[in-house]
């Protein structure tokens, strides 16, 4: 309210809103005293806007971002929202929506990073997620496995249908207790990258295809789940750790499922070097896929390739990596087209030996064998929207859009749009 000696004036720039109801403006006012602005409703009542900025309402964001550009292209989304709002002229341009979405996603990722750093620091972790304290809750975590009796039952069931000797019983990879375990599927997704600078008239060189990188992690525990994304594994691991801490899961077993990528496995093992109760399992789908691909390059013809694959896969299904390698080494030379590929496959199995369990027994025990749910998360968060014909993305753009998609998947968008915060909790 203005007082004596104060003057109320109308601000020269109208306040601009992009809402679910359409784009509109309204006038804001200032109180002046001796030519000084004492109060400005454009800043003190409504959110302060800069330059040509529009205030985007939560309703607009829900429709344009959650139901819009995370599903369809920016162009299609703007056409749809402008049509719904009967504002095909003077509505939201697609480039503006594109930039607004990127800003929202970037701001969300920054918020998650800050939140994660705070959580880590509160629990005595370094910002990087490494624990150097002495809290026994974190340092003295002994692996928790299922009862030996249950495991023996499962192994005997395996023996019934198995033609191999019982080498798989000695597989050193334990059988985690699902109720005491958080399953974490981590995978990288690459999308075609846009040139950073497009020089007019310059022809594109096709020999070196560039990719923009996304890392997706899907965490699940007792029927609840959460999806996190980031630019790289190294940037995502501290966030995963902070998420586990804030959900009171730090004492559980961390069971990672990966595609066997060395960089990914090394990053995980280094990061959790302080935690004993954790493990990595090479996802069965990727193991089979890799064997198939490398055997196609190795063998003389499809028939031979399939014969070898049909003998190799059962060995790996029972976690008999040594026998699988032995079997590969015994392939007659006349059947081999490319011995380098065979060596590659052997090296891959050697490298991943510590992560190849007895999948058969795990299946009997009802344990997870595959990162299929993680792969599905990749599709939902990145591939379905970003891997279409002719699409290419900037590094920032792909991760920002994936962050908004993950926000929708985690059903956190209302809180984020309204309060600029997220629950960061596992949900059904």
């Amino acid at each position: 309210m203005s007082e004596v000696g104060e003057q109320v004036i109308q601000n020269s720039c109208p306040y601009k809103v992009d809402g679910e109801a359409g784009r509109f403006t309204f006038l804001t006012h200032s109180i002046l005293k001796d030519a000084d602005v004492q109060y400005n409703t454009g800043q003190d009542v409504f959110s302060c806007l800069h330059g040509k900025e529009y205030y985007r309402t939560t309703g607009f964001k829900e429709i344009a971002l959650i139901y819009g550009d995370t599903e369809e292209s920016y162009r299609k989304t703007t056409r749809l929202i402008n049509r719904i709002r009967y504002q095909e002229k003077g509505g939201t341009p697609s480039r503006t929506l594109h930039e607004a979405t990127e800003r929202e996603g970037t701001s969300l990722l920054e918020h998650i990073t800050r939140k994660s750093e705070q959580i880590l620091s509160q629990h005595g972790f370094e910002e990087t997620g490494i624990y150097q304290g002495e809290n026994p809750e974190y340092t003295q975590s002994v692996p928790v496995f299922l009862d030996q009796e249950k495991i023996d039952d499962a192994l005997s069931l395996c023996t019934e249908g198995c033609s191999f000797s019982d080498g798989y019983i000695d597989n050193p990879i334990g059988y985690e207790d699902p109720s005491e375990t958080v399953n974490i599927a981590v995978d990288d997704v690459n999308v075609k990258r846009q040139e950073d600078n497009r020089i007019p008239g310059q022809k594109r060189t096709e020999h070196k295809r560039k990719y923009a990188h996304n890392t997706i992690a899907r965490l699940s525990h007792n029927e609840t789940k959460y999806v996190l994304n980031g630019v790289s594994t190294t940037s995502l691991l501290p966030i995963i750790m902070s998420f586990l801490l804030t959900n009171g899961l730090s004492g559980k077993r961390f069971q990672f499922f990966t595609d066997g990528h060395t960089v990914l496995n090394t990053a995980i093992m280094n990061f959790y070097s302080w935690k004993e109760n954790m493990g990595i399992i090479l996802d069965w789908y990727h193991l089979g896929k890799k064997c198939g691909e490398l055997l196609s390059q190795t063998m003389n013809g499809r028939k031979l390739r399939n014969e070898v694959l049909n003998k190799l896969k059962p060995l790996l299904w029972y976690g008999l990596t040594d026998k699988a390698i032995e079997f590969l080494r015994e392939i007659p030379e006349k059947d081999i087209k490319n011995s380098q590929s065979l060596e590659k496959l052997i090296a891959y199995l050697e490298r991943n030996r510590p992560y190849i369990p007895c999948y058969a027994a795990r299946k009997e025990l009802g344990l997870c064998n595959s990162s299929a749910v993680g792969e599905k998360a990749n599709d939902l968060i990145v591939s379905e929207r970003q891997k279409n014909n002719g699409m290419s993305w900037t590094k920032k753009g792909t991760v920002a859009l994936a962050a908004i998609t993950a926000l929708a998947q985690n059903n956190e968008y209302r809180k984020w749009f309204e309060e600029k915060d997220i629950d960061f909790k596992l949900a059904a």
Partner: protein
Amino acid sequence: MTGYKVKVSVELVECDESISGSPTEQQDGSFSMVISEKDAVSIDKCEKTILQTAYPTIRSALSEHLTGVSQKKSW
């Protein structure tokens, strides 16, 4: 008669009524919803409330109008 005039008027007026969580139909067929003074300053809340109230009004107006048209055509 040569046509139909569509008249829409949305009003936000101060009142002393108790706050309602959803649009309620009035005796004259219009819909209204009461929000708090705090929500009346929020762009998001105002937009949401207006849209939430407008759509039942639009549906009701369409329904009433088309019933009338049908009745008229059947005479």
